[in-house]
């Protein structure tokens, strides 16, 4: 093989190696974006009360040397391994009465008197906001920052906790009263005397609750 031929072979080999490396980098940079979801739904809801809620989620994260020796487990906190974060979130919750199934069955009229029977108020998280200006974090020298995945997981945990706490906050009575305050002027404008108007709420029972009542009786 002549020196010229050898040079050509080396050049071809190097070109192949570099081009292969380049393709690998391109593939790792590609990000496949997920589909966007949009859902449009017709509603008939009367929002009667708005609540602004506040919650702080904190996380302590310690780096540990852990394992087992002679079947004995051990954990040792590494020095400069503890990082902490506090994420405040604000949530807007609204109480609403669902009028989607409102019909003649919900209205009782006898002479001048009118009674409106409505389902119990329900609650929905309208919006949530992470208070970015007030996020506090402590990161020691040997630790990396909290990743975006960790931050979103913390916010999600806070949102789930707000949703879980809603029944315990006893918001139903205020929601009922405010719904009645919106409906009574509407009915009086339609010609009914305020003293003759009654707004009654009833709980919308689930199938399992109804079957439980039947079994108990």
């Amino acid at each position, binding site marked *: 093989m002549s020196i010229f031929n050898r040079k050509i072979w080396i050049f071809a080999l190097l070109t192949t190696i570099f081009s292969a490396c380049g393709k690998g980098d391109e593939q790792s940079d590609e*990000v496949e*974006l997920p589909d*966007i*979801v*949009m*859902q*449009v*739904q017709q*509603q*008939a*809801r*009367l*929002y*009667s*009360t*708005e609540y*602004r*809620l*506040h919650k702080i*989620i*904190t*996380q*302590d994260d310690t*780096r*540990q040397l*852990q*394992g*087992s*020796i002679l079947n004995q487990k051990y*954990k040792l906190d590494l020095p400069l391994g503890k990082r902490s974060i506090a994420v405040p*979130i604000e949530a*807007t919750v609204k109480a*609403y009465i669902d*009028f989607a199934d*409102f019909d003649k069955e*919900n*209205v009782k009229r006898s002479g001048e008197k009118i009674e409106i029977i409505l389902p119990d108020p329900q609650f929905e*998280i309208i*919006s*949530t*906001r*992470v208070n*970015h200006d007030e996020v506090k974090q402590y990161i020691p020298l040997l630790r990396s*920052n909290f*990743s*975006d*995945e960790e*931050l*979103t997981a913390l*916010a999600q945990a*806070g*949102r789930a*906790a*707000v949703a879980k706490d809603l029944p315990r906050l006893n918001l139903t009575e205020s929601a009922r009263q*405010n719904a009645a*305050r*919106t409906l009574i002027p*509407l*009915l009086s404008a*339609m010609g009914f005397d305020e003293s003759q108007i009654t707004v009654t709420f009833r709980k919308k029972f689930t199938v399992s609750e109804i079957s439980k009542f039947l079994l108990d009786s």
Partner: protein
Amino acid sequence: MKRKTTRKSKKNDHSFVQDLLLQILKTIPQSMMNALLIGGVIIALIVGAYFLLRNSDVSIGNEATVRLSPTVIEQMEAIGQWEFLAISDEEIADTVRKGIFSDNELVRIYKGTLRLGIDMADARKDWIRQSGDTVTVVLPPVKLLDENFLDEAATKSFYETGKWSQQARKQLAEQARRKMLKRCMTKANIETARQNAVAQFRQMISSMGFKHIDIKISSTQPKTQSSKKKSSKTKSKSTKSSSKSTVKSKKNN
């Protein structure tokens, strides 16, 4: 006699082997002997350590403790808003920071629900009137009920390279909010909400026994009292932004 001779021969064999070993050992130099001894000790230690540690493991891990403060009600406000259309949307928002060697990127998926309806705070004094068996209703204009519709705490992280500040995340949320407004506040959606508003009010009033119902939706915001000026300022801002997004969507179409 025979037994004695065999014992003697065995003794002779033993002494012969011992002599041979001693002679071999004497031929090995002292330095090599020391090296052999040290080598033997090291091998014994390795074998001992292997049997001692074969069922043990070591790793570096994280132990995270999440604590949640009690949920506090900061504010409670009586409202009267009718929602007639809810548009749930997801938007991808991303930001890129150019670097010398490589670019840093942050991509997040935001969720939000835009609620279209009417706010009774915008209604005229005589928005509902009754004469005989006829009810006349003039509803306030359909608008976006909540300017803050982003469910930021439900955000999913999608892609991250490099370090990003909280300020960058705040800007990303605003970007997602603008995208949602542009996508959802279309003329078609506002019209659907208006039609549903008329249908729902008609259904509700007819359920109360009225036969003749006349429903209109006003297209302009009513003049509010001086006490309401501050709140109306924010509301008018919201309508401005919604109308802007409608124009944008028109352009897109």
